[in-house]
Protein backbone atom coordinates (compact mmCIF):
# COMPACT_ATOMS: atom_id res chain seq x y z
CA UNK A 1 0.00 0.00 0.00
CA UNK A 2 1.39 3.39 -0.90
CA UNK A 3 -0.04 5.10 2.13
CA UNK A 4 1.65 3.74 5.17
CA UNK A 5 5.26 4.82 4.90
CA UNK A 6 4.53 8.37 3.83
CA UNK A 7 1.77 8.71 6.37
CA UNK A 8 4.33 8.15 9.05
CA UNK A 9 6.63 10.75 7.60
CA UNK A 10 3.68 13.17 7.65
CA UNK A 11 3.37 12.31 11.28
CA UNK A 12 7.00 12.95 11.97
CA UNK A 13 6.53 16.31 10.28
CA UNK A 14 3.75 17.24 12.65
CA UNK A 15 5.88 16.18 15.54
CA UNK A 16 8.94 17.99 14.34
CA UNK A 17 7.34 21.20 15.55
CA UNK A 18 7.43 19.97 19.10
CA UNK A 19 10.92 18.59 19.02
CA UNK A 20 12.45 21.33 16.89
CA UNK A 21 12.62 23.55 19.91
CA UNK A 22 14.30 20.96 22.04
CA UNK A 23 16.83 20.01 19.40
CA UNK A 24 17.40 23.41 17.87
CA UNK A 25 19.47 24.92 20.66
CA UNK A 26 22.99 24.92 19.25
CA UNK A 27 25.59 23.03 21.19
CA UNK A 28 28.76 24.55 22.47
CA UNK A 29 30.56 24.08 19.15
CA UNK A 30 30.79 27.74 18.27
CA UNK A 31 32.52 28.76 21.46
CA UNK A 32 35.44 26.42 21.21
CA UNK A 33 37.16 28.87 18.87
CA UNK A 34 36.05 31.92 20.85
CA UNK A 35 33.71 33.09 18.14
CA UNK A 36 30.92 35.42 19.18
CA UNK A 37 27.45 34.06 18.37
CA UNK A 38 24.88 36.77 17.75
CA UNK A 39 21.20 36.15 17.13
CA UNK A 40 19.28 38.90 15.39
CA UNK A 41 16.27 39.36 13.16
CA UNK A 42 17.15 38.92 9.50
CA UNK A 43 18.44 42.07 7.78
CA UNK A 44 18.26 44.06 11.01
CA UNK A 45 21.90 45.21 10.99
CA UNK A 46 24.29 46.17 8.20
CA UNK A 47 25.39 43.16 6.15
CA UNK A 48 29.10 43.91 6.43
CA UNK A 49 28.93 44.77 10.14
CA UNK A 50 30.62 41.61 11.37
CA UNK A 51 33.50 42.01 8.91
CA UNK A 52 33.94 45.60 10.01
CA UNK A 53 33.74 44.48 13.64
CA UNK A 54 36.50 41.96 13.04
CA UNK A 55 38.67 44.49 11.23
CA UNK A 56 38.23 47.00 14.05
CA UNK A 57 38.53 44.72 17.08
CA UNK A 58 39.99 41.42 15.89
CA UNK A 59 37.01 39.49 17.34
CA UNK A 60 35.32 36.92 15.12
CA UNK A 61 31.55 36.80 15.19
CA UNK A 62 28.86 34.81 13.47
CA UNK A 63 25.24 35.67 12.96
CA UNK A 64 22.23 33.42 13.40
CA UNK A 65 18.76 34.76 12.71
CA UNK A 66 15.45 34.38 14.46
CA UNK A 67 12.09 35.31 12.97
CA UNK A 68 10.36 36.27 16.19
CA UNK A 69 11.03 37.13 19.82
CA UNK A 70 9.18 33.98 20.81
CA UNK A 71 11.47 31.83 18.71
CA UNK A 72 14.72 33.06 20.24
CA UNK A 73 13.10 33.13 23.66
CA UNK A 74 12.19 29.46 23.29
CA UNK A 75 15.71 28.52 22.31
CA UNK A 76 17.38 30.53 25.05
CA UNK A 77 15.01 29.36 27.80
CA UNK A 78 15.39 25.74 26.68
CA UNK A 79 19.17 25.85 26.54
CA UNK A 80 19.84 28.24 29.41
CA UNK A 81 21.30 30.65 26.86
CA UNK A 82 24.22 28.36 26.06
CA UNK A 83 25.56 28.79 22.55
CA UNK A 84 24.61 32.46 22.29
CA UNK A 85 26.55 35.54 23.33
CA UNK A 86 24.50 38.47 22.09
CA UNK A 87 20.76 38.60 21.46
CA UNK A 88 18.50 41.14 19.81
CA UNK A 89 15.11 40.97 21.53
CA UNK A 90 12.28 43.38 22.30
CA UNK A 91 12.30 45.12 25.67
CA UNK A 92 9.62 43.04 27.39
CA UNK A 93 11.48 39.87 26.40
CA UNK A 94 14.80 41.26 27.62
CA UNK A 95 13.01 41.95 30.89
CA UNK A 96 11.73 38.37 31.09
CA UNK A 97 15.21 37.02 30.32
CA UNK A 98 16.57 39.18 33.13
CA UNK A 99 13.99 37.84 35.57
CA UNK A 100 15.09 34.34 34.58
CA UNK A 101 18.72 35.27 35.21
CA UNK A 102 19.66 34.53 31.61
CA UNK A 103 21.20 37.89 30.72
CA UNK A 104 24.44 39.43 31.99
CA UNK A 105 24.73 42.75 33.81
CA UNK A 106 26.43 45.26 31.54
CA UNK A 107 29.77 46.83 32.37
CA UNK A 108 29.28 50.42 31.19
CA UNK A 109 33.02 51.14 31.33
CA UNK A 110 33.45 48.75 28.41
CA UNK A 111 30.75 50.49 26.36
CA UNK A 112 31.96 54.11 26.00
CA UNK A 113 29.69 54.65 23.00
CA UNK A 114 26.70 54.63 25.36
CA UNK A 115 27.27 58.38 25.30
CA UNK A 116 25.80 58.39 21.77
CA UNK A 117 22.33 57.53 23.09
CA UNK A 118 19.64 60.08 23.90
CA UNK A 119 19.29 60.65 27.66
CA UNK A 120 15.73 59.31 27.35
CA UNK A 121 17.14 55.96 26.24
CA UNK A 122 18.33 55.25 29.77
CA UNK A 123 14.88 55.89 31.25
CA UNK A 124 13.09 53.03 29.59
CA UNK A 125 10.87 51.17 32.03
CA UNK A 126 11.94 47.66 31.12
CA UNK A 127 15.48 48.47 32.24
CA UNK A 128 16.09 51.89 33.83
CA UNK A 129 19.77 52.76 33.65
CA UNK A 130 20.49 50.15 30.96
CA UNK A 131 21.72 47.65 33.50
CA UNK A 132 21.30 44.61 31.24
CA UNK A 133 20.13 45.92 27.86
CA UNK A 134 20.82 48.68 25.41
CA UNK A 135 18.06 49.97 23.14
CA UNK A 136 18.67 49.48 19.43
CA UNK A 137 15.53 50.88 17.85
CA UNK A 138 12.19 52.16 19.09
CA UNK A 139 8.87 53.23 17.77
CA UNK A 140 5.10 53.12 18.07
CA UNK A 141 2.24 51.02 16.77
CA UNK A 142 -0.58 52.85 15.09
CA UNK A 143 -2.73 53.32 12.03
CA UNK A 144 -1.37 53.25 8.51
CA UNK A 145 -3.78 54.22 5.76
CA UNK A 146 -4.31 55.27 2.16
CA UNK A 147 -4.94 59.00 2.48
CA UNK A 148 -6.10 59.13 -1.15
CA UNK A 149 -8.76 56.44 -0.75
CA UNK A 150 -10.29 56.88 2.72
CA UNK A 151 -13.00 59.51 3.14
CA UNK A 152 -11.85 60.70 6.54
CA UNK A 153 -8.34 60.26 7.92
CA UNK A 154 -8.38 57.89 10.93
CA UNK A 155 -7.60 59.50 14.26
CA UNK A 156 -8.31 56.92 16.95
CA UNK A 157 -8.49 53.19 17.70
CA UNK A 158 -12.23 53.15 16.96
CA UNK A 159 -11.49 53.86 13.32
CA UNK A 160 -9.69 50.51 13.25
CA UNK A 161 -11.85 48.48 15.65
CA UNK A 162 -15.22 49.80 14.49
CA UNK A 163 -14.47 50.74 10.89
CA UNK A 164 -16.74 52.92 8.78
CA UNK A 165 -18.96 50.91 6.37
CA UNK A 166 -16.77 51.67 3.35
CA UNK A 167 -13.76 50.24 5.19
CA UNK A 168 -15.35 46.93 6.16
CA UNK A 169 -13.20 44.03 4.85
CA UNK A 170 -10.50 46.52 3.94
CA UNK A 171 -8.82 46.60 7.33
CA UNK A 172 -6.06 44.39 8.75
CA UNK A 173 -4.81 44.00 12.31
CA UNK A 174 -1.55 42.69 13.72
CA UNK A 175 -1.83 39.10 14.91
CA UNK A 176 0.96 39.09 17.51
CA UNK A 177 -0.68 38.88 20.92
CA UNK A 178 0.68 42.00 22.60
CA UNK A 179 -0.17 44.31 19.72
CA UNK A 180 -3.50 42.74 18.86
CA UNK A 181 -4.69 43.01 22.48
CA UNK A 182 -2.92 46.36 22.87
CA UNK A 183 -5.23 47.93 20.29
CA UNK A 184 -8.25 46.71 22.26
CA UNK A 185 -6.81 47.82 25.60
CA UNK A 186 -6.04 51.31 24.36
CA UNK A 187 -9.45 51.71 22.75
CA UNK A 188 -10.98 51.21 26.21
CA UNK A 189 -8.46 53.47 27.89
CA UNK A 190 -6.70 50.55 29.57
CA UNK A 191 -2.97 49.87 29.87
CA UNK A 192 -1.15 47.93 27.15
CA UNK A 193 0.15 45.83 30.06
CA UNK A 194 -3.32 45.15 31.49
CA UNK A 195 -3.42 42.22 33.92
CA UNK A 196 -7.04 42.19 35.14
CA UNK A 197 -8.55 38.91 33.82
CA UNK A 198 -12.04 40.41 33.47
CA UNK A 199 -10.74 43.30 31.39
CA UNK A 200 -8.68 40.94 29.23
CA UNK A 201 -11.80 38.87 28.64
CA UNK A 202 -13.85 41.92 27.72
CA UNK A 203 -11.11 42.99 25.32
CA UNK A 204 -11.13 39.56 23.66
CA UNK A 205 -14.89 39.94 23.14
CA UNK A 206 -14.42 43.41 21.67
CA UNK A 207 -11.74 42.21 19.27
CA UNK A 208 -13.83 39.16 18.38
CA UNK A 209 -16.52 41.60 17.19
CA UNK A 210 -13.94 43.53 15.17
CA UNK A 211 -12.92 40.33 13.39
CA UNK A 212 -16.13 40.47 11.33
CA UNK A 213 -15.00 43.63 9.58
CA UNK A 214 -11.39 42.58 9.00
CA UNK A 215 -9.82 41.50 5.75
CA UNK A 216 -7.11 39.56 7.58
CA UNK A 217 -4.73 39.41 10.52
CA UNK A 218 -1.40 40.29 9.03
CA UNK A 219 2.01 40.87 10.62
CA UNK A 220 4.15 40.74 7.52
CA UNK A 221 2.55 41.99 4.32
CA UNK A 222 0.05 44.60 5.50
CA UNK A 223 1.90 47.45 3.82
CA UNK A 224 1.83 45.73 0.43
CA UNK A 225 -1.92 45.24 0.85
CA UNK A 226 -2.13 49.03 1.24
CA UNK A 227 0.03 49.58 -1.83
CA UNK A 228 -2.22 47.32 -3.92
CA UNK A 229 -5.34 48.94 -2.46
CA UNK A 230 -6.60 45.61 -1.15
CA UNK A 231 -6.60 47.16 2.32
CA UNK A 232 -7.21 50.84 3.05
CA UNK A 233 -6.41 50.96 6.75
CA UNK A 234 -4.01 48.70 8.62
CA UNK A 235 -2.71 48.25 12.15
CA UNK A 236 1.02 48.79 11.72
CA UNK A 237 4.39 49.40 13.29
CA UNK A 238 5.56 52.86 12.27
CA UNK A 239 8.69 51.64 10.48
CA UNK A 240 6.71 49.11 8.44
CA UNK A 241 4.19 51.76 7.45
CA UNK A 242 7.18 53.59 6.00
CA UNK A 243 7.79 50.63 3.68
CA UNK A 244 4.37 51.35 2.21
CA UNK A 245 5.04 55.09 2.05
CA UNK A 246 8.24 54.37 0.14
CA UNK A 247 6.15 52.82 -2.63
CA UNK A 248 3.18 55.16 -2.47
CA UNK A 249 3.43 58.61 -0.90
CA UNK A 250 -0.32 58.61 -0.17
CA UNK A 251 0.28 56.02 2.56
CA UNK A 252 0.38 57.80 5.90
CA UNK A 253 0.89 56.91 9.54
CA UNK A 254 -0.93 58.27 12.56
CA UNK A 255 -0.61 57.60 16.28
CA UNK A 256 -4.16 57.14 17.63
CA UNK A 257 -5.35 59.98 19.84
CA UNK A 258 -5.90 57.65 22.84
CA UNK A 259 -2.19 56.86 22.75
CA UNK A 260 -0.41 53.66 21.90
CA UNK A 261 2.49 51.49 22.97
CA UNK A 262 6.17 52.30 22.79
CA UNK A 263 8.09 49.23 21.66
CA UNK A 264 11.83 49.00 22.06
CA UNK A 265 14.14 46.47 20.42
CA UNK A 266 17.19 45.90 22.59
CA UNK A 267 20.51 44.11 22.65
CA UNK A 268 21.55 41.92 25.58
CA UNK A 269 24.51 39.71 26.48
CA UNK A 270 23.62 36.22 27.73
CA UNK A 271 24.65 35.26 31.23
CA UNK A 272 26.02 32.03 29.75
CA UNK A 273 28.35 33.87 27.36
CA UNK A 274 32.01 32.95 27.80
CA UNK A 275 33.09 35.78 25.53
CA UNK A 276 31.87 38.73 27.55
CA UNK A 277 34.77 40.99 26.62
CA UNK A 278 34.08 40.46 22.92
CA UNK A 279 30.35 40.83 23.52
CA UNK A 280 30.84 44.20 25.22
CA UNK A 281 33.10 45.24 22.34
CA UNK A 282 30.30 44.30 19.95
CA UNK A 283 27.73 46.36 21.87
CA UNK A 284 30.09 49.30 21.81
CA UNK A 285 30.68 48.80 18.09
CA UNK A 286 26.98 48.73 17.33
CA UNK A 287 26.45 52.02 19.19
CA UNK A 288 28.46 53.85 16.55
CA UNK A 289 26.40 56.57 14.89
CA UNK A 290 26.75 55.06 11.42
CA UNK A 291 25.05 51.81 12.49
CA UNK A 292 22.10 53.77 13.85
CA UNK A 293 22.05 55.78 10.64
CA UNK A 294 21.90 52.54 8.65
CA UNK A 295 18.93 51.33 10.74
CA UNK A 296 16.94 54.47 10.03
CA UNK A 297 17.90 54.69 6.37
CA UNK A 298 17.46 51.00 5.58
CA UNK A 299 14.94 49.58 8.03
CA UNK A 300 13.24 52.98 8.43
CA UNK A 301 13.01 52.63 12.18
CA UNK A 302 13.93 55.32 14.66
CA UNK A 303 16.88 54.58 16.88
CA UNK A 304 17.71 55.98 20.31
CA UNK A 305 21.17 56.85 19.01
CA UNK A 306 21.25 60.66 19.14
CA UNK A 307 24.40 61.00 17.09
CA UNK A 308 23.03 58.60 14.47
CA UNK A 309 19.64 60.29 14.20
CA UNK A 310 21.24 63.71 13.93
CA UNK A 311 23.40 62.58 11.03
CA UNK A 312 20.34 61.58 8.98
CA UNK A 313 19.46 63.44 5.81
CA UNK A 314 16.61 65.80 6.81
CA UNK A 315 14.74 64.97 3.60
CA UNK A 316 13.95 61.57 5.15
CA UNK A 317 11.95 63.26 7.91
CA UNK A 318 9.76 64.97 5.34
CA UNK A 319 9.11 61.81 3.43
CA UNK A 320 8.62 59.69 6.58
CA UNK A 321 7.26 62.05 9.25
CA UNK A 322 7.18 59.34 11.94
CA UNK A 323 10.99 59.17 11.80
CA UNK A 324 11.01 62.72 13.15
CA UNK A 325 9.16 61.80 16.36
CA UNK A 326 11.35 62.97 19.24
CA UNK A 327 12.37 60.78 22.17
CA UNK A 328 10.21 62.97 24.42
CA UNK A 329 7.18 62.27 22.22
CA UNK A 330 7.97 58.57 22.20
CA UNK A 331 8.25 58.39 25.96
CA UNK A 332 4.73 59.80 26.30
CA UNK A 333 3.49 56.47 24.95
CA UNK A 334 3.14 53.49 27.22
CA UNK A 335 6.01 51.04 27.09
CA UNK A 336 5.31 47.34 26.56
CA UNK A 337 6.48 45.45 29.63
CA UNK A 338 6.71 41.81 30.54
CA UNK A 339 3.43 40.65 32.09
CA UNK A 340 4.72 37.39 33.58
CA UNK A 341 1.91 34.97 34.45
CA UNK A 342 -0.68 37.07 32.65
CA UNK A 343 0.88 35.95 29.36
CA UNK A 344 -1.23 32.81 29.75
CA UNK A 345 -4.42 34.88 29.84
CA UNK A 346 -3.24 36.77 26.77
CA UNK A 347 -2.74 33.49 24.90
CA UNK A 348 -6.22 32.37 25.77
CA UNK A 349 -7.70 35.72 24.76
CA UNK A 350 -6.00 35.46 21.37
CA UNK A 351 -7.38 31.93 20.88
CA UNK A 352 -10.85 33.24 21.76
CA UNK A 353 -10.50 36.00 19.18
CA UNK A 354 -9.22 33.66 16.49
CA UNK A 355 -11.96 31.12 17.20
CA UNK A 356 -14.68 33.81 17.17
CA UNK A 357 -17.15 33.51 14.33
Amino acid at each position, binding site marked *: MIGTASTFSGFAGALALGTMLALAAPGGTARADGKLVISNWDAYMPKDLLDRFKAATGYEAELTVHATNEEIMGKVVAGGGKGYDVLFVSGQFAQALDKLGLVAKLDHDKIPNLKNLYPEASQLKHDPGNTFSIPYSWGTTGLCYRSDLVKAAPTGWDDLLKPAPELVKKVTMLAT*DRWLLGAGFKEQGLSVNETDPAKIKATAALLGETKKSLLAYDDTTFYSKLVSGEALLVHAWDGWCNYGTAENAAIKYVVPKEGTDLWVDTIVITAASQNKAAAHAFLDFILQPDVAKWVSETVMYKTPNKAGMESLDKALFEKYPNLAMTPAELLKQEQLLDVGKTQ*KDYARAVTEIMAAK
Partner: protein
Amino acid sequence: MITSRWSRMLLAAPGLGWIALFLLVPCGVLFVNAFFERGIYGGIDYEARTLDNFARVLDPLYVEVFLGSARVALAATVVAVILAYPAALAISLAPARRHTLLLFLVMLPFWTNYLIRTYAWMVLLNRKGLANGALVASGITAEPLDMLYSEPAVVLGLVYSYLPFVVLSIYTSISRLDRALLEASADLGAGLARTFVKVMLPLTLPGIATGAVFIFVLSIGNFVTADLLGGGQVQMIGNLIYDQFLTARDWPFGAALALVLIAVMMLLLFAQAALAGRAARRGAAA
Protein backbone atom coordinates in the same frame (compact mmCIF):
# COMPACT_ATOMS: atom_id res chain seq x y z
CA MET B 1 21.35 -16.85 4.90
CA ILE B 2 19.91 -13.38 4.64
CA THR B 3 16.58 -14.63 5.90
CA SER B 4 17.97 -15.55 9.29
CA ARG B 5 16.26 -13.75 12.10
CA TRP B 6 19.28 -11.70 13.04
CA SER B 7 20.07 -10.44 9.57
CA ARG B 8 16.44 -9.49 9.05
CA MET B 9 16.51 -7.48 12.23
CA LEU B 10 19.73 -5.89 11.14
CA LEU B 11 18.17 -4.82 7.86
CA ALA B 12 15.16 -3.37 9.63
CA ALA B 13 17.28 -1.52 12.16
CA PRO B 14 18.00 1.70 10.21
CA GLY B 15 14.34 2.29 9.38
CA LEU B 16 13.07 1.32 12.80
CA GLY B 17 15.82 3.35 14.43
CA TRP B 18 14.76 6.37 12.40
CA ILE B 19 11.15 5.96 13.47
CA ALA B 20 12.15 5.43 17.09
CA LEU B 21 14.36 8.49 17.12
CA PHE B 22 11.98 10.86 15.35
CA LEU B 23 8.61 9.46 16.34
CA LEU B 24 8.76 7.60 19.62
CA VAL B 25 11.31 9.80 21.39
CA PRO B 26 9.56 13.11 20.55
CA CYS B 27 6.22 11.56 21.47
CA GLY B 28 7.69 10.48 24.77
CA VAL B 29 9.05 13.97 25.39
CA LEU B 30 5.65 15.48 24.60
CA PHE B 31 3.94 12.97 26.85
CA VAL B 32 6.16 13.77 29.81
CA ASN B 33 6.03 17.51 29.27
CA ALA B 34 2.25 17.55 29.18
CA PHE B 35 2.16 16.70 32.88
CA PHE B 36 3.95 19.82 34.12
CA GLU B 37 3.07 23.48 34.47
CA ARG B 38 4.25 26.26 32.24
CA GLY B 39 7.06 28.28 33.80
CA ILE B 40 6.11 31.91 34.41
CA TYR B 41 8.41 32.98 31.59
CA GLY B 42 7.69 30.07 29.33
CA GLY B 43 9.39 26.73 29.22
CA ILE B 44 8.45 24.05 31.68
CA ASP B 45 8.39 24.13 35.45
CA TYR B 46 9.52 20.62 36.35
CA GLU B 47 8.76 21.28 40.01
CA ALA B 48 5.04 21.51 39.40
CA ARG B 49 3.21 18.41 38.26
CA THR B 50 -0.35 18.82 37.03
CA LEU B 51 -3.16 17.26 35.03
CA ASP B 52 -4.60 20.68 34.18
CA ASN B 53 -3.29 20.65 30.64
CA PHE B 54 -5.45 17.70 29.68
CA ALA B 55 -8.42 19.23 31.45
CA ARG B 56 -7.86 22.42 29.47
CA VAL B 57 -7.95 20.50 26.19
CA LEU B 58 -11.58 19.71 27.05
CA ASP B 59 -12.42 23.40 27.53
CA PRO B 60 -15.24 24.18 25.02
CA LEU B 61 -13.02 26.86 23.45
CA TYR B 62 -10.40 24.34 22.41
CA VAL B 63 -12.87 21.56 21.64
CA GLU B 64 -14.47 23.98 19.21
CA VAL B 65 -11.12 24.60 17.52
CA PHE B 66 -10.72 20.81 17.22
CA LEU B 67 -14.17 20.44 15.71
CA GLY B 68 -13.59 23.38 13.39
CA SER B 69 -10.35 21.84 12.14
CA ALA B 70 -12.09 18.51 11.64
CA ARG B 71 -14.80 20.26 9.64
CA VAL B 72 -12.24 21.98 7.38
CA ALA B 73 -10.24 18.76 6.97
CA LEU B 74 -13.41 16.79 6.23
CA ALA B 75 -14.51 19.30 3.60
CA ALA B 76 -11.08 19.05 1.98
CA THR B 77 -11.33 15.25 2.09
CA VAL B 78 -14.75 15.12 0.45
CA VAL B 79 -13.81 17.58 -2.29
CA ALA B 80 -10.51 15.82 -2.94
CA VAL B 81 -12.10 12.36 -3.22
CA ILE B 82 -14.78 13.67 -5.60
CA LEU B 83 -12.10 15.26 -7.78
CA ALA B 84 -9.59 12.44 -7.51
CA TYR B 85 -11.77 9.44 -8.29
CA PRO B 86 -12.62 10.38 -11.89
CA ALA B 87 -9.01 11.46 -12.45
CA ALA B 88 -7.67 8.15 -11.14
CA LEU B 89 -10.23 6.25 -13.19
CA ALA B 90 -9.28 8.18 -16.33
CA ILE B 91 -5.60 7.43 -15.80
CA SER B 92 -6.22 3.72 -15.32
CA LEU B 93 -8.44 3.62 -18.43
CA ALA B 94 -5.78 5.33 -20.56
CA PRO B 95 -3.44 3.14 -22.63
CA ALA B 96 -0.87 1.54 -20.33
CA ARG B 97 2.08 3.30 -21.97
CA ARG B 98 0.60 6.66 -20.94
CA HIS B 99 0.28 5.81 -17.25
CA THR B 100 3.77 6.88 -16.28
CA LEU B 101 3.39 10.22 -18.02
CA LEU B 102 -0.05 10.88 -16.51
CA LEU B 103 1.10 9.96 -13.01
CA PHE B 104 4.12 12.16 -13.52
CA LEU B 105 1.81 15.05 -14.36
CA VAL B 106 -0.20 14.42 -11.20
CA MET B 107 2.97 14.63 -9.15
CA LEU B 108 4.38 17.62 -11.03
CA PRO B 109 3.14 20.31 -8.59
CA PHE B 110 5.38 18.77 -5.94
CA TRP B 111 8.36 20.09 -7.81
CA THR B 112 7.43 23.51 -6.53
CA ASN B 113 7.77 24.40 -2.89
CA TYR B 114 4.61 24.11 -0.82
CA LEU B 115 4.81 27.71 0.40
CA ILE B 116 5.26 29.09 -3.09
CA ARG B 117 2.21 27.16 -4.30
CA THR B 118 0.22 28.53 -1.39
CA TYR B 119 1.36 32.08 -2.12
CA ALA B 120 0.35 31.51 -5.74
CA TRP B 121 -3.21 30.98 -4.55
CA MET B 122 -3.02 34.31 -2.74
CA VAL B 123 -2.04 35.96 -6.02
CA LEU B 124 -4.90 34.22 -7.80
CA LEU B 125 -7.62 34.84 -5.25
CA ASN B 126 -7.10 38.31 -3.83
CA ARG B 127 -9.41 41.19 -4.71
CA LYS B 128 -6.92 42.49 -7.25
CA GLY B 129 -6.03 38.98 -8.34
CA LEU B 130 -6.29 37.07 -11.60
CA ALA B 131 -9.53 35.29 -10.75
CA ASN B 132 -11.32 38.50 -9.76
CA GLY B 133 -9.82 40.28 -12.76
CA ALA B 134 -11.30 37.69 -15.09
CA LEU B 135 -14.68 37.69 -13.33
CA VAL B 136 -15.02 41.47 -13.47
CA ALA B 137 -13.69 41.80 -17.03
CA SER B 138 -16.11 39.18 -18.30
CA GLY B 139 -18.99 40.91 -16.54
CA ILE B 140 -19.92 37.90 -14.39
CA THR B 141 -19.63 40.04 -11.30
CA ALA B 142 -19.63 43.82 -11.04
CA GLU B 143 -17.46 43.97 -7.93
CA PRO B 144 -14.47 41.79 -7.07
CA LEU B 145 -15.48 38.94 -4.74
CA ASP B 146 -13.96 38.32 -1.31
CA MET B 147 -12.51 34.90 -2.02
CA LEU B 148 -9.25 34.99 -0.15
CA TYR B 149 -9.06 34.89 3.66
CA SER B 150 -12.01 32.60 4.16
CA GLU B 151 -12.69 29.00 5.09
CA PRO B 152 -13.42 27.94 1.49
CA ALA B 153 -10.04 29.40 0.47
CA VAL B 154 -8.34 27.26 3.12
CA VAL B 155 -10.22 24.15 1.93
CA LEU B 156 -9.19 24.95 -1.65
CA GLY B 157 -5.54 25.30 -0.65
CA LEU B 158 -5.59 22.00 1.23
CA VAL B 159 -7.27 20.15 -1.62
CA TYR B 160 -4.80 21.58 -4.10
CA SER B 161 -1.81 20.64 -1.97
CA TYR B 162 -2.80 17.09 -1.17
CA LEU B 163 -4.88 16.03 -4.19
CA PRO B 164 -2.02 14.08 -5.84
CA PHE B 165 -1.82 11.75 -2.82
CA VAL B 166 -5.50 10.96 -3.13
CA VAL B 167 -5.29 10.42 -6.91
CA LEU B 168 -2.37 8.06 -6.47
CA SER B 169 -3.94 5.96 -3.76
CA ILE B 170 -7.22 5.61 -5.65
CA TYR B 171 -5.33 4.87 -8.87
CA THR B 172 -3.43 2.05 -7.15
CA SER B 173 -6.69 0.58 -6.01
CA ILE B 174 -8.39 0.84 -9.41
CA SER B 175 -5.44 -0.53 -11.34
CA ARG B 176 -5.41 -3.61 -9.12
CA LEU B 177 -9.07 -4.22 -9.78
CA ASP B 178 -9.75 -7.43 -11.68
CA ARG B 179 -11.40 -6.25 -14.91
CA ALA B 180 -13.05 -9.66 -15.25
CA LEU B 181 -15.31 -8.72 -12.33
CA LEU B 182 -16.58 -5.69 -14.22
CA GLU B 183 -17.20 -7.79 -17.31
CA ALA B 184 -18.99 -10.39 -15.21
CA SER B 185 -21.20 -7.68 -13.75
CA ALA B 186 -22.05 -6.45 -17.25
CA ASP B 187 -22.72 -10.02 -18.42
CA LEU B 188 -25.14 -10.46 -15.56
CA GLY B 189 -27.09 -7.48 -16.81
CA ALA B 190 -25.90 -4.65 -14.61
CA GLY B 191 -25.61 -1.26 -16.28
CA LEU B 192 -22.59 0.98 -15.92
CA ALA B 193 -23.98 2.85 -12.91
CA ARG B 194 -24.97 -0.35 -11.14
CA THR B 195 -21.60 -1.97 -11.85
CA PHE B 196 -19.89 1.10 -10.47
CA VAL B 197 -21.92 1.25 -7.27
CA LYS B 198 -22.15 -2.49 -6.60
CA VAL B 199 -18.77 -3.74 -7.81
CA MET B 200 -16.21 -1.08 -8.48
CA LEU B 201 -16.83 1.28 -5.58
CA PRO B 202 -16.77 -1.39 -2.84
CA LEU B 203 -13.62 -2.97 -4.27
CA THR B 204 -11.79 0.34 -4.52
CA LEU B 205 -12.96 1.51 -1.10
CA PRO B 206 -9.59 0.70 0.55
CA GLY B 207 -7.91 3.06 -1.94
CA ILE B 208 -10.44 5.77 -1.22
CA ALA B 209 -9.99 5.21 2.51
CA THR B 210 -6.22 5.44 2.22
CA GLY B 211 -6.42 8.66 0.23
CA ALA B 212 -9.11 10.12 2.48
CA VAL B 213 -7.25 9.37 5.71
CA PHE B 214 -4.14 10.75 4.11
CA ILE B 215 -5.56 14.14 3.21
CA PHE B 216 -7.60 14.33 6.42
CA VAL B 217 -4.60 13.69 8.64
CA LEU B 218 -2.37 16.09 6.71
CA SER B 219 -5.09 18.76 6.62
CA ILE B 220 -6.11 18.66 10.25
CA GLY B 221 -2.54 19.23 11.37
CA ASN B 222 -1.79 21.89 8.77
CA PHE B 223 -1.26 25.44 9.95
CA VAL B 224 0.50 27.25 7.10
CA THR B 225 -2.43 27.11 4.69
CA ALA B 226 -4.87 28.25 7.36
CA ASP B 227 -2.58 31.13 8.17
CA LEU B 228 -1.95 32.31 4.61
CA LEU B 229 -5.23 31.61 2.84
CA GLY B 230 -7.38 32.13 5.92
CA GLY B 231 -5.74 35.46 6.67
CA GLY B 232 -5.15 34.27 10.22
CA GLN B 233 -8.90 34.21 10.75
CA VAL B 234 -9.40 30.48 10.35
CA GLN B 235 -8.04 28.92 13.50
CA MET B 236 -7.03 25.29 13.09
CA ILE B 237 -5.65 22.95 15.71
CA GLY B 238 -2.23 23.19 14.02
CA ASN B 239 -2.24 26.95 14.50
CA LEU B 240 -3.31 26.53 18.09
CA ILE B 241 -0.44 24.12 18.82
CA TYR B 242 2.00 26.36 16.95
CA ASP B 243 0.83 29.32 19.01
CA GLN B 244 1.23 27.45 22.29
CA PHE B 245 4.82 26.55 21.47
CA LEU B 246 5.96 29.69 19.73
CA THR B 247 3.80 32.56 20.99
CA ALA B 248 2.33 31.69 24.36
CA ARG B 249 5.42 29.63 25.20
CA ASP B 250 3.08 27.27 27.03
CA TRP B 251 4.86 24.06 26.06
CA PRO B 252 3.01 21.74 28.45
CA PHE B 253 -0.38 22.76 27.08
CA GLY B 254 0.95 22.62 23.53
CA ALA B 255 2.21 19.12 24.27
CA ALA B 256 -1.18 18.06 25.62
CA LEU B 257 -2.94 19.43 22.53
CA ALA B 258 -0.42 17.72 20.23
CA LEU B 259 -0.89 14.39 22.02
CA VAL B 260 -4.65 14.56 21.63
CA LEU B 261 -4.21 15.36 17.94
CA ILE B 262 -1.78 12.47 17.51
CA ALA B 263 -4.22 10.16 19.28
CA VAL B 264 -6.99 11.19 16.88
CA MET B 265 -4.72 10.61 13.90
CA MET B 266 -3.61 7.22 15.25
CA LEU B 267 -7.22 6.14 15.64
CA LEU B 268 -7.94 7.11 12.06
CA LEU B 269 -4.89 5.30 10.77
CA PHE B 270 -5.76 2.14 12.68
CA ALA B 271 -9.34 2.29 11.44
CA GLN B 272 -8.06 2.66 7.89
CA ALA B 273 -5.56 -0.18 8.33
CA ALA B 274 -8.33 -2.41 9.72
CA LEU B 275 -10.55 -1.55 6.77
CA ALA B 276 -7.75 -2.32 4.32
CA GLY B 277 -7.03 -5.59 6.11
CA ARG B 278 -10.65 -6.66 6.01
CA ALA B 279 -10.90 -5.81 2.33
CA ALA B 280 -7.74 -7.80 1.61
CA ARG B 281 -9.14 -10.84 3.44
CA ARG B 282 -12.44 -10.52 1.62
CA GLY B 283 -10.55 -10.22 -1.68
CA ALA B 284 -8.59 -13.38 -0.83
CA ALA B 285 -11.77 -15.25 0.03
CA ALA B 286 -13.50 -14.26 -3.20
